[in-house]
């Protein structure tokens, strides 16, 4: 459910110079690559690609995968307290899906020759990011609903275009993920609806959650276009297909009537329909907060990373045990573990 955010495109832009270099080295393949992208054809793992394209993709897929698995935490926080057995089953299935989505995305990244272990190490060392939205805490049960409706909603708005991303394995993973995500958004909306129509205390809980999650959700689309000249390269490569502001506006337009149907208000007095432009105007986003959370000063940055590191470290003996067992029994184990070729590239 990750947002594809600003800093990724920054890196993509940094690759502009490299690109010229790639093309100079291999003009025929570079031309074929450009033609394929221009024709909306898919780039597949073993195809030639500019180094910067590869690096940009790995970073984007890694951030996306990391967001899925870090994103399990704020919701898993409520599994043991879900207020009905039906809700508990739904929430467990949703958090499980997020693990699954992380898996699909790490697999897609592996087709470019980057192992999951390597990506996890970078996450744990703080060298790769995940979506900042998960650095906010889930304080009440209604937050589970707000995450489903707003955070997953924003993620879907971001992700649906990625199903047409130029890189085949990423696009295919996104098709599967988007199909599964629509359940996530609907369950969140339904959860909030039950609260909004419930007791006054429940209604208040729902409104409070929407108040807290609305602005961070808008920030998931990344900085405004004028501050994000970097997305140009990603757009040209069709790794990204719409601008941040375009997607953000689309999201606001979708949410306004949905909020009305919920009987809840969005915490922005400036939201109103603009007849002339045929869309909603809305208030200014506090980008200082966004930058602060990005820098690591959000409410939960340290906690989220610490839990992830702990789970990984405490699981090391289990992973080692299974690997040792497989070596001893060597049933159906492919060769040795230290393959030098790129795993996954053959088939994805």
């Amino acid at each position, binding site marked *: 459910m990750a947002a594809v955010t600003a800093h990724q495109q920054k890196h993509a832009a940094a690759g502009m110079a490299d690109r010229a270099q790639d093309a100079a080295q291999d003009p025929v393949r570079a031309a074929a690559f450009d033609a394929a992208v221009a024709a909306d054809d898919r780039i597949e793992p073993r195809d030639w690609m500019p180094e910067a394209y590869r690096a940009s993709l790995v970073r984007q897929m890694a951030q996306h995968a990391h967001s899925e698995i870090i994103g399990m935490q704020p919701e898993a926080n409520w599994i043991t307290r879900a207020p*009905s*057995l039906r809700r508990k*089953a739904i929430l467990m299935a949703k958090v499980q899906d997020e693990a699954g989505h992380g898996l699909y995305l790490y697999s897609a990244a592996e087709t470019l020759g980057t192992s999951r272990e390597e990506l996890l190490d970078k996450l744990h060392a703080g060298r790769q990011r995940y979506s900042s939205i998960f650095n906010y805490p889930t304080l009440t049960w209604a937050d589970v609903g707000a995450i489903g409706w707003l955070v997953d909603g924003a993620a879907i708005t971001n992700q649906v275009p990625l199903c047409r991303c130029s890189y085949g394995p990423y696009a295919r993973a996104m098709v599967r993920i988007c199909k599964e995500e629509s359940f996530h958004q609907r369950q969140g909306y339904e959860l909030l609806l039950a609260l909004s129509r419930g*007791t006054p205390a429940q209604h208040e809980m729902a409104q409070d959650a929407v108040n807290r999650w609305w602005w961070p959700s808008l920030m998931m689309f990344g900085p405004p276009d004028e501050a994000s000249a970097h997305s140009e390269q990603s757009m040209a490569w069709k790794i990204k297909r719409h601008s941040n502001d375009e997607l953000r506006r689309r999201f606001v337009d979708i949410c306004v009537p949905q909020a009305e149907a919920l009987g809840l208000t969005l915490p922005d007095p400036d939201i109103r329909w603009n007849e002339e432009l045929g869309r909603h105007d809305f208030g200014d986003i506090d980008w200082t907060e966004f930058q602060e959370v990005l820098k690591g000063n959000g409410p939960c940055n340290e906690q989220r990373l610490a839990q992830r590191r702990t*789970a990984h470290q*405490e*699981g090391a003996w289990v992973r080692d045990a299974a690997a040792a*067992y497989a070596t001893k029994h060597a049933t159906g184990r492919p060769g040795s573990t230290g393959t030098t070729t790129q795993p996954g590239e053959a088939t994805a």
Partner: protein
Amino acid sequence: MTAALALGDDALVLSHRLGEWAGHAPVLEEEVALANIALDLLGQARVLLSLVGDEDELAYLREERAFRNVQLVEQPNGDFAHTIARQLFFSVYQHLLYERLAAGDGTFADLAAKAVKEVAYHRDHAEQWTLRLGGGTAESHERMQRGLDALWRFTGELFQPVEGTGVESIGVDWQALRAEWLAAVTDVVERATLTVPTGRQSGAWQAGAGRQGLHTESFGKMIAEMQHLHRSHPGASW
């Protein structure tokens, strides 16, 4: 309908414990596997509890002493080996019991026929991991043995006859179940190069305790967490 309550509570409580693993599993693939098992168990619990009354009232509004689950399933997760030991002991029991229920024509036959397939998978999962942890590294071997040893004293209770119409009417032979369970567990444990614990299978006043509503201390905290939100909003629907 004590039997439905007993078996329903077993599934509910174990599902809850497995749910606590979310976000903490040793590897992503195992996040997915543990959640699958937890979801199967929760599904079973909902069907069983609904035979008795309203599932949410039963899950969220009963006091600790009214729960009828065995103490084994309420034991905290511990490390992964501890969880696998709990899974092994319980899933072998549940599989053998549900096979019998499915074969009968009692109240639980239909439900058990569906559940037995799920439980067969849980058992397989536990067995696969027992083999790998037992036969993996020195550390995993030691941890797995510790898990088996620590939980062994909660296994005697599994074979206390469950009172009530459903189970008794199909005549579960609890002694035979026990013998079969022991043989199956012994087989896996020995193949995993581990040792079947030799201590008592129940403490001085533990035999049948969970089934009578006597639980271990951690259980009270577990249901306090589970029930808190629901109880804070009396009469609300979710």
